[in-house]
């Protein structure tokens, strides 16, 4: 029997090693797997490379993970957000490396990484400092830069509903990076608000097929970063 359910958050992240690359889903608050991130903080390993669109806010979730010093490098498109102070402080004091990637290039690098495509060409960044040092080619008279596919050792993502095979359904715009990160990580760990029986999710409505998922943990009432920040909460 295939059963990808894990009873605890701590168990689902316990083999993440120091130096691992970890993709973390979410666009700002929306889709951020706060409970899995907090489990990773408790797990305590360092020298992580984290891939996320943003850099967190307040001192919970991703920002809290950065604040612990466990992350040596962040690959992201927009590390500035309202209420984001942890990352700017680390960045200005040289305690974290930043690889700045345009949002669409970041998404396509993750998609490519999960689809077995080592590199691709895009016109995005041509003529800007972000194109410096990148291989160029001209297609149909237009300049492009080469970008590499991006994969990870682990992905931490959040969804609304899962089954024990790892089939996933998301909630509204919380879908964002979840489906592509699930394809790009060796081990994909999912927190699901609800876990239903196999066959209860209409195959036409499955967004992420279970083949891309390794572990599912139930988190019945997941926290929202913005609400925790508004309450002034700090983790740990």
């Amino acid at each position, binding site marked *: 029997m295939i059963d990808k359910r894990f009873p605890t958050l701590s168990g689902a992240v316990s083999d993440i090693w120091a130096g691992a690359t970890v993709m973390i889903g979410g*666009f*700002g*608050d*929306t*889709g951020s797997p706060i409970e899995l991130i907090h489990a990773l903080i408790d797990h305590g390993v360092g020298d992580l490379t984290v891939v996320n*669109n943003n850099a967190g806010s307040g001192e919970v979730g991703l920002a809290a993970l950065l604040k612990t010093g466990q992350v040596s490098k962040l690959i992201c*498109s*927009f*590390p*500035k*957000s*309202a209420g984001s102070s942890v*990352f*700017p402080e680390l*960045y*200005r004091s040289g305690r974290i490396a*930043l690889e*700045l*990637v*345009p*949002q*669409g*290039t*970041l*998404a*396509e690098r*993750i*998609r490519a990484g999960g689809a077995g495509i080592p590199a691709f060409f*895009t*016109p*995005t*960044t*041509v003529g*800007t400092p*972000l194109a410096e040092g990148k291989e160029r080619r001209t297609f149909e008279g237009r300049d492009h830069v080469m970008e590499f596919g991006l994969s990870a050792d682990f992905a931490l993502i959040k969804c609304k509903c899962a089954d024990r095979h790892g089939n996933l359904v*998301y*909630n*509204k*715009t*919380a*879908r*964002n*990076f*979840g*489906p*592509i990160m699930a394809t790009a990580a060796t081990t994909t760990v999912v927190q699901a608000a609800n876990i239903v029986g196999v066959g209860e999710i209409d195959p036409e409505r499955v*967004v992420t097929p279970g083949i891309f998922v390794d572990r599912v943990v139930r988190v019945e009432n997941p926290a*929202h970063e*913005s*609400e925790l920040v508004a309450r002034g909460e700090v983790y740990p």
Partner: protein
Amino acid sequence: MSSADGPVGWSREEMAQRAALDIENGSYVNLGIGIPERVAKYVPAGREVIYHTENGLLGMGPAPESDAGDPELINAGKRQVTAVPGASYFHHADSFAMIRGGHIDVCVLGAMQVSQTGDLANWSTGAPDAVPAVGGAMDLVAGVA
């Protein structure tokens, strides 16, 4: 731009109103953060326009009534929005396929500076301690026909 006599040119609201006039019936339109968020309300009546937000929604509607919002339904500016009838959700790679693939008709972007020839400054001030943040704007500029 400003002078001793006060701001020169259009107000933010006037810029949004003017931009809205250029949006044709039947367009798929990406709205960026800031002034672009005000554009939709000025599109002339009778034009059906579908709004795209790059975090994964086609068919974006206005902000929800207070306390009727969902923290998992937001726009690119991370503000709560609604989904209109006929809307769809999708992941980021699909969203930027719409953008880079030339499927979006119009994009309304915010910027720090714009040159006479249309060059945009909108992701870094260049200050030594500035945190650069590029987001999706470069993909939009490269991809929207």
